[in-house]
C-alpha cells in the first residue's frame, strides 16, 4: 500500500483516486476520491457512503463551495510542482468554505513546498513516487515564524501577542 504524509505522520494510504475522465459506475468496496466534475454531474445519484473528491488546478473550487464539508477528504492536484494555483484553492477551502476534513496535495508537490502547503491548509501530502518521506517531514517545519495570516494561523505576525 502506498505511503503518504498525514498530519505529520507517514501512513499507509487507503484511498483510490479515479482519473479525471472517469465515467461509468464507481467501484464499490473501496474508499474513492472522485474527480470533481464526476461528482458534480452525479451527486444526486451517487450512493457510496464515504467519498472524497479531487479538484484539478484549472477547476473552480467555488463549484464545491459550501458543500466542502460533505466530504471527509478533498484532494487538490498539482499537475506540475510549479503550478501554484492549488495554494489558493487550499486557502479558499479552509478559510472561505471552512472545510475541516483531510486536505491532500496530490500530483507533483515536492518536499520543498511542504511548509507553504501546510500554511495553505494542507495536512496530507502524496509526494511523487520514490520520495524520501522520513527526510521530507523535516521540511514541514522549515520556519518557526511567519509574517502572514493563512490557513494555519489566523493572525498576521503584527496582530499576534508576544509569545
Amino acid at each position, binding site marked *: 500500500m502506498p505511503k503518504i504524509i498525514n498530519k505529520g505522520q507517514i501512513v499507509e494510504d487507503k484511498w483510490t483516486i479515479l482519473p479525471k475522465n472517469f465515467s461509468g459506475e464507481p467501484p464499490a468496496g473501496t474508499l474513492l476520491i472522485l474527480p470533481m466534475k464526476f461528482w458534480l454531474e452525479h451527486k444526486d445519484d451517487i450512493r457510496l457512503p464515504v467519498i472524497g473528491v479531487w479538484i484539478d488546478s484549472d477547476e473552480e473550487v467555488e463549484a464545491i463551495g459550501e458543500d466542502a464539508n460533505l466530504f471527509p477528504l478533498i484532494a487538490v492536484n498539482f499537475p506540475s510542482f*510549479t503550478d501554484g494555483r492549488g*495554494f489558493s484553492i487550499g486557502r479558499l477551502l479552509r478559510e472561505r468554505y471552512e472545510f475541516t476534513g483531510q486536505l491532500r496535495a496530490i500530483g507533483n508537490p515536492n518536499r520543498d513546498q511542504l511548509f507553504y502547503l501546510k500554511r495553505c491548509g494542507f495536512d496530507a501530502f502524496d509526494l511523487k513516487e520514490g520520495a524520501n518521506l522520513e527526510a521530507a517531514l523535516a521540511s514541514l517545519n522549515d520556519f*518557526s515564524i511567519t509574517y502572514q495570516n493563512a490557513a494555519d494561523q489566523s493572525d498576521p505576525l503584527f496582530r499576534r501577542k508576544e509569545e
Partner: protein
Amino acid sequence: MYRYTENDQKIIEERVAQFRGQTERYLAGELANEEFLPLRLQNGLYIQRLAPMLRIAVPYGLLNSAQFRKLAHVARHFDKGYCHFTTRQNIQFNWPQLEEVPDILAELAQVQMHAVQTSGNCIRNITSDQYAGVAGDEIEDPRPWCEILRQWSTFHPEFAYLPRKFKIAVSGSESDRAAILVHDIGLQLVRNEADELGFKVLVGGGLGRTPVIGSVIREFLPWQHILGYLDAIVRVYNRYGNRDNKYKARIKILVRAWTPEVFAEKVEKEWAHIMDGPCTLTQGEVDRVKQHFTLPAYETLDAASTDAALAAQAADNKAFAKWLERNTLPHRVSGYSIVNLSLKPTGVAPGDVTDTQLETIADLADRYSFGEIRATHNQNLVLADVRKSELFELWQQAKVAGFATPNIGTLTDLICCPGGDFCSLANAKSIPVAEAIQRRFDDMDYVYDLGDLTLNISGCMNACGHHHVGNIGILGVDKKGAEFYQVQLGGTADNGAALGNVLGPSFGQEEIPDIIGKILDVYVANRQGDELFIDTYRRIGLNPFKESVYAKDH
C-alpha cells in the same frame, strides 16, 4: 532605516539553513535540476554564461555603511572583487561558487541582508523612490509602507509559484521616481478630500517583450486595507494568469485580455471576502514600522552663510560648480543637500563597484550622511543627507574614489543591463555599446548643452535596461546569430511614463555611436530655446530623426 526585530532575524537565519540544506541535497544528487531551479531562483541564484550569478535584495534601495562593508567582504572573498548595482535597486555578484552561496547568505544575514525572492515566479523586491524621506514634493514617506509590504510578501505561502515574476513599486511623492506605471502593481500614496491617507492602485504595467502602461483599478484605497487588497489582486492573478506560455504569463496580459474594468471587478469581488479580515493593518503596526524611519538628527544650520560659502567655492572651481549643478539636489531641510554618486565613469560597466570602493562609500556615508546610502534604479548611489558646508570636501574625496563624474541625468549617465558579457538570456552585448557611447560623447560641455536626457540599453527583450522608457532606447537583437541593435525614441519613465517608438531597421554595434550622434544633431537643430530632448521629440515626432538617420549619404 528599518532594523530587524528578533523575529525578522530568525526568519532570515532559518532561510539560510533551509537553502543550505537544499543546496547540499542538490550537490548530493538528491534534488533534480528542475526541482532545484525554482528554489535557487527564489534565493537569487542564476546559472549564467560563465558562472552563477547571485542577486542580493536591497529592499526599496536602502543600505547602511555596515552592509556596504559586508558587501565589500563578500566581493573580496567570494567573488572577483566587485559587484553590480542593478536597475531594480538590487546588487549582483557575478562570480560566486554555487557551493559557497549558503555561506554568502549567512554572512549577509549578519547585517540583515538576504537574497529572498530576488528572482523566480514570486513577488520580487519592492522598489521605491531613491529620494524617499528627503524629497521636497513628498506626500507621505513610502519607506514604512514598503517595509510593511516587504514583510507581507516575504515567504507568502500562497504566492511562491505564480505564473510569472511579480514586481511592485511604491511612490510617495508627486513626481513619480519609482516608475509605478511600468510595474505589475504600482502604488501611489495619496490623500483624499478628507485628508485621509490611502493608495491609488495601478495594475498591469510592465516592460519586457510586451511593454504596457499600467491601468488604475482603484483611485483610493484606505491604507488599512492595502495588504488585503494586494492579496486579492495576486490571488486573482495566481488563479487566472496564463501558465501555458511564459511570454503571456505576466499580469499585464491578463489585465489586457479581461480589460482593466473586468479585472478590477474580479479583484473587488475577491476583496469583499477578505476586507476587514485579520490582515487589516493597525495603527500600532504602522507606528512601529514608522519609528524606524524618523528623521536623522539634522542640525539647525545657518542657510544664508552656507549658501554664500558654497557659491564662493563654486565660483572658484568650475568642476565643482558642474558637479553641484548635476549631481546634487535640493533637500527639504535647510542647509542640507542630496548627493548622487555617479557609477557611470567612462570605461567602467555602469553600476559596477569594487570592494575598496564599497568601503570608501561606507566611510563617506558615515562621515557625511548618517551612515546611510540609497541605490537608485538609474544604477547610481545617493547620500541623502549631506551638510552643504561639507559638499566641497565630499566632492574632493568622491573624485579621488571615482564617483564624482558630473553626469547625473545626462547622456552619459546611461542605464545598462549586464548584457551578453554575463547574462545567458541576452541576445547582444550591452556594456561595450555603453562604453562606446560614453567615449564618443566625452566632451562634457556638449553633454551639458544637451541637458537632461536618458539613454537606456538592454541586451534583450527582457528589458532589464528599461530601453522602452529611455528618451533614447537601445535594444540588442539577434539576427541570424549576429548581434544587432534597434533604436527607439521618445520613452520616459517619470510622471506620465511613455513607451518609445522604434526608429527603424537595426544597426551593427560599431554604427551605434554615429547613429546617436545623428539623432542628437536633429535635436540640436530643431530645439527651441531650452527645450529638452523629449519635448522636441514630442513636438516634431519620429520622422525628422528617421530621415536623418536613414538618409543615403551624399
